[in-house]
């Protein structure tokens, strides 16, 4: 029982592939493209679990290889050698996530998803921003030249931000909807450009595109998928829950480092 044998069996090689994949995503900071921040703890837990399983496979009591007397050992044998020890093609299957990640690169969801899924214009999403400041012009907002930075969610949730008077700044992707995608009660001619953002809860699979109708000169000429920072004022359209954003100034920006808005 005191002697241990260090050996990498086929199952250990499989776990090594998953350790590599998890490590790359976690330590490379690529999780922001796929998961909400709180899921990082699950990822770390998964990594620890994989490490423990890997260690248990590598460090084996020597006697276990030679003698199998009890039922657990029989069970272990049947599991380990028939299924956990994969045929060589299983390695290729396990490598698939890594291969896809390397070929395609880390990418957030984009306009193609908006075209397939359609748009959500009246969501009940929470805002990730602290909007509790009473005068909305506190310190730390200098970079916005008097505009209050908010996100699309906050425009819907906080009435004072969409009263038509408060200067606000939002970031989003340009999206030009087809007439059939225009929000209900809105004239398609009045909604030729949307500022859009994906909001997620747990992972990209549950992310939904939300948007605000943007009105302003030259917006129709901006290509779809471009990230912009727009400064202006927001107001609710008459008789509707839909918020319209009247753009006073707009500039292209690089894709944000955290590409998703987060729910509560």
């Amino acid at each position, binding site marked *: *029982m005191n002697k241990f044998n260090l050996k990498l069996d086929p*199952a250990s090689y*499989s776990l090594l592939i*998953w350790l590599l994949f*998890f490590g790359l995503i976690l330590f490379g900071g690529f*999780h922001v*493209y*796929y*998961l909400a921040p709180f899921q990082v703890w*699950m*990822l770390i*837990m998964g990594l620890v*679990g994989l490490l*423990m*399983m890997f*260690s*248990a*496979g590598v*460090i084996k*009591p020597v006697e276990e290889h030679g003698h199998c007397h*009890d*039922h*657990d050992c*029989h069970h*272990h044998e049947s*599991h*380990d050698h028939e*299924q956990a020890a994969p045929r060589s*093609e*299983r390695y290729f*299957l396990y490598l*698939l*996530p890594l*291969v*896809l*990640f390397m*070929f*395609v*690169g880390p*990418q957030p*969801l*984009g306009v*193609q*998803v908006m*075209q*397939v*899924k*359609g748009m*959500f214009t*009246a*969501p*009940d999403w929470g805002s990730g921003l602290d909007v509790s400041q009473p005068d909305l012009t506190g310190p730390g907002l200098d970079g916005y030249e008097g505009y209050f930075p908010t996100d699309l969610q906050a425009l819907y949730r906080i009435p004072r931000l969409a009263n038509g008077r408060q200067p606000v700044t939002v970031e989003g992707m340009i999206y030009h909807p087809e007439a059939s995608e225009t929000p209900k009660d809105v004239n398609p001619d009045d909604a030729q450009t949307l500022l859009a953002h994906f909001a997620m*809860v*747990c*992972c*990209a*699979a*549950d992310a*939904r595109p939300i948007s605000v109708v943007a009105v302003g000169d030259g917006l129709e000429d901006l290509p779809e998928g471009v990230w912009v920072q727009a400064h202006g004022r927001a107001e609710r359209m008459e008789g509707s829950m839909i918020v319209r954003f009247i753009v006073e100034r707009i500039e292209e920006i690089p894709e944000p480092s955290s590409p998703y808005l987060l*729910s509560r």
Partner: protein
Amino acid sequence: MSEHTASRESFAGWDMYLMAAILMALMIMPYRAAWLATFTTYFLAVLLEAIPFLILGAIIAATVETFLPPDFLARLAERMGVLGVPAVALASVVFPICECGVVAVGRGLLRKGLPLRHTIVFLLAAPIFNPVVIFSTLVAFAYEPRFAIARALGGFLVPIAVALMAVGNDEVLLPELAQEAAMIESAANDHKPPMTRRILMTFDHSRSELLDMLPYLMFGVACAAAMQTFLGGRILTVVGQGTVSGPLAMMGAAFSLSLCSEADAFVASTFVQFDFPAIVAFLVLGPMLDIKLVMMYRKVFKTGFIWRMSLLTIVSVAAYVAALAWVIG
């Protein structure tokens, strides 16, 4: 060649075809084709979210296997009689895991002698009838409690109904799993290994369990990612929002989207065009039956039984939703 070996051989065929198809697409499509980027993002996101839960499930299953006395669950079930079935649903509260981890735990419980009927209740109830899911449903619908209550009730009643209807006298478990359960039962009187050895065995078993389930999870996730990439919310509107078509459309969405039960309520809350029964159909069916779950059930049950259980689950959820619609008028 045994039946199970044959099924594994055929499965090894499809996963290779899937991988080959994706890799070929990578080679012939323009670099960074939009659909491929979307598919990859969905595929990796769901995998990264699901695998930690699968690891947790594998560790729980291995712990149960190594440390619980061999005939404990069987004796307990026998002692509780018919009350044991709803008791399992209630006990699911102490396993706050989503559907990605529940199949691994279910396999461990089966090996340890939990009767099939009880295990089915656990598999179907645990991903819904747990505090995390109920609370997230409450939050997603702005603390309007009827959605959470209807979901919890469905998560309690539907599994019991399915378990009572689905299980007959025929053999439904994979021969390998039945054989392992019998082996553990026959070794009930063997001596216990020392503690350090049992801890090592726990991790050794859990890694076997994990690697056993992973190809099935990956294939299910790939199918779900493809559905997410090519089928959007618009198709739901086309299919219908009627009294009958609405719940059916939402059940189809729940099956194909394969969302985590701890997050799906937030997605359901965005389907504002659907009424209460349709949303409840989505919330109740999704954690019990989706693409990745069907794939993972292949490591527990024979294919014929998976079909039967799936059909019964759909019918039971539809009946529950119809009853709900009738009650609320």
